[in-house]
């Protein structure tokens, strides 16, 4: 199969969907050249640097029958649009009794690794997971990117596509034909029997590297990639933990009230899963700090394959009795 980068897969999904549906148009603070070339200024709109305004405009246009894509570029840029995202986009369908759908795709890159410091590096998806009325996903491969982005564009709700900065240039196989990946369907990226690692985006790849290394010691690691954050595939996560009895959660965000906390709760509040847990759940997360600039500091903040390995060893050594 031919290979595309993560970023190319996203562009291909958007391009194919825009060819299919004339109601789709695109707003961002700079027009993406390949989109502009094919679709022109009528459908590819370069906006002033006013995320609040064009986020709100996407809501209004969606309520009038269009299917806007609002590209915030970096997720940190959308914080000036929080009223439009949280008070308007997320609530408007419910608050007005479901009168009309609001099909909107928001795009935002997340994560670190770029040495661009705190205002251009963040993984704040759990802030949005906490708001009812938004769907969201974070793919780890070009294949998942194209399939999930197409599902998002065809969804009749506001959907946020979180896209990992670290993975933009990473290649992988992507079919040329039209395919979609349903929301709420986790993907087991590697099967294993000793411990479950739930990871997102770049950390899926770090977890795969960790699993490969540990396999030489006879340790069998299962890697679950939830892919969509809302809706979240609880069953696949619980089934995996019930099988392995151990859970490590790897997240490029900090731990506090985060995605990792949600996964831990999903595992431990379910009686059947809790009964099978052989050790306390371990979270391998970024430090709870704004992301610093200097390379030494930045890499000190983020989890990586070595920390995932350490986390796996910890849950393998631990057991419930020892914890008690």
């Amino acid at each position, binding site marked *: 199969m031919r290979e595309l980068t993560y970023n190319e897969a996203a562009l291909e999904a958007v391009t194919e969907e825009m060819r299919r549906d004339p109601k789709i148009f695109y707003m961002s603070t700079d027009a993406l050249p390949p989109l502009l070339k094919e679709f022109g200024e009528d459908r590819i709109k370069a906006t002033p640097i006013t995320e609040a305004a064009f986020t*709100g405009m996407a*809501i*209004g246009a969606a309520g009038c029958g269009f299917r806007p894509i609002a590209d915030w570029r970096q997720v940190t840029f959308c914080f000036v649009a929080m*009223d439009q995202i949280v008070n308007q986009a997320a609530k*408007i369908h419910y608050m007005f009794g479901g009168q009309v759908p609001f099909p909107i795709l928001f795009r935002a890159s997340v994560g670190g690794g770029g040495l661009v410091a705190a205002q251009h590096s963040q993984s704040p998806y759990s802030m949005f997971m906490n708001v*009812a009325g938004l769907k969201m996903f974070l793919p780890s491969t070009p294949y998942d990117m194209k399939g999930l982005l197409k599902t998002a564009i065809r969804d009749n*709700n506001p959907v946020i596509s979180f896209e990992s900065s670290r993975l933009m240039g990473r290649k992988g196989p992507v079919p040329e034909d039209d395919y979609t990946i349903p929301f709420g369907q986790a993907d087991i990226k590697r099967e294993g029997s000793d411990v479950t690692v739930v990871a997102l985006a770049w950390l899926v790849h770090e977890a795969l590297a960790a699993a490969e290394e540990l396999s030489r010691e006879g340790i069998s690691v299962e890697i679950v990639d939830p892919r969509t954050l809302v809706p979240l595939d609880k069953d696949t996560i619980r089934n995996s933990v019930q099988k392995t009895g151990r859970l490590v959660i790897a997240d490029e965000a900090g731990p506090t009230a985060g995605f990792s906390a949600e996964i831990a709760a999903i595992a431990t509040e379910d009686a059947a899963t809790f009964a099978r847990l052989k050790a306390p759940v371990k979270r391998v997360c970024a430090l709870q700090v704004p992301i610093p600039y200097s390379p030494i500091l930045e890499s000190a903040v983020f989890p990586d394959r070595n920390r995932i390995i350490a986390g796996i060893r910890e849950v393998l050594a631990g057991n419930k009795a020892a914890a008690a």
Partner: protein
Amino acid sequence: MALATQSPSTNLSPDKQREMLRQMLTIRRFEERASADYNAGKIYGVVHCYIGEEAVAVGVCTALGQGDRIISTHRGHGHCIAKGADLNRMMAELYGRQTGYCKGKGGSMHIADFGIGMLGANGIVAGGIAIVTGAGLAAQMEGKGGVAVSFFGDGASNAGPFHECLNIAATWKLPMLYVCENNMYAAQTAAAKTHALPDVAARAAGYGIPGIVVDGNDVFAVYQAANQAVDRARSGGGPTLIECKTYRWRAHTERKGQPDPRDPGEREAWLRKDPIALLERQLREQGELDDAGLRSIEGDIMGTLEAAIAFAEASPFPLPEQATDDVFSA
């Protein structure tokens, strides 16, 4: 900045002028009843009354067609009624019933009727300006000559979305009317303490679009300004900022015991400028309205209103399990 204070009504038929009176009176009677029922405990949460400002919604909406779209504020009953919303479903929403516009999920601050181009009352000051600017963009892309109207207050004119959206609408020549209802107070705080300039309309110059100040209690002056702005918008000329100077007769909300720091003398002076009394007088002077005609209009309104109350009271409350409906669209 142009100034429009005269009231030529010649391009509106007598029937249309009486219809404007009927709409303004409907808004007033609806809110008088809503306030009473709120105080009787039949309506919950919070109610913001538009009484005293009726000429703005009716004057602007008279200049619109059915395909045009508007967005409103937390003080939204007047815009709903002027755009043609159904009083039964409005009152049922205030009563928190299943049959309300939002199935009891929204209440007074969130009434919407997308079917008539009413994109919703909005509880966040300046929250609707960007959304309706998106409706203006939609109208431009549809290419059918539609326009979109943002109603907002003097308070919202100091918030970011006002400036961001005026700039985009002016740059993209969106078919928009930005209608500032300057009632001189943002909740309890006087505009004089929060605005660098007395006229919001003066800000239009910064975006290269017309900014017009009108007497917001003169429905014909409002209509005339809106009509010109609609013509300009439909013909591709872009947006207009219309500032309607008006006054809210009641406190910020109907909640009892709220402070109202406004000068009673100021309020008395504005009561004498009642927009409904002014229109009534104009119609009588033109020989288009007499006592019997007015009684007939009032009778119709009270009949419709009583029917709306009866509809709301007879309607079921939502079921508890319906709290989880409509978070997402299918």
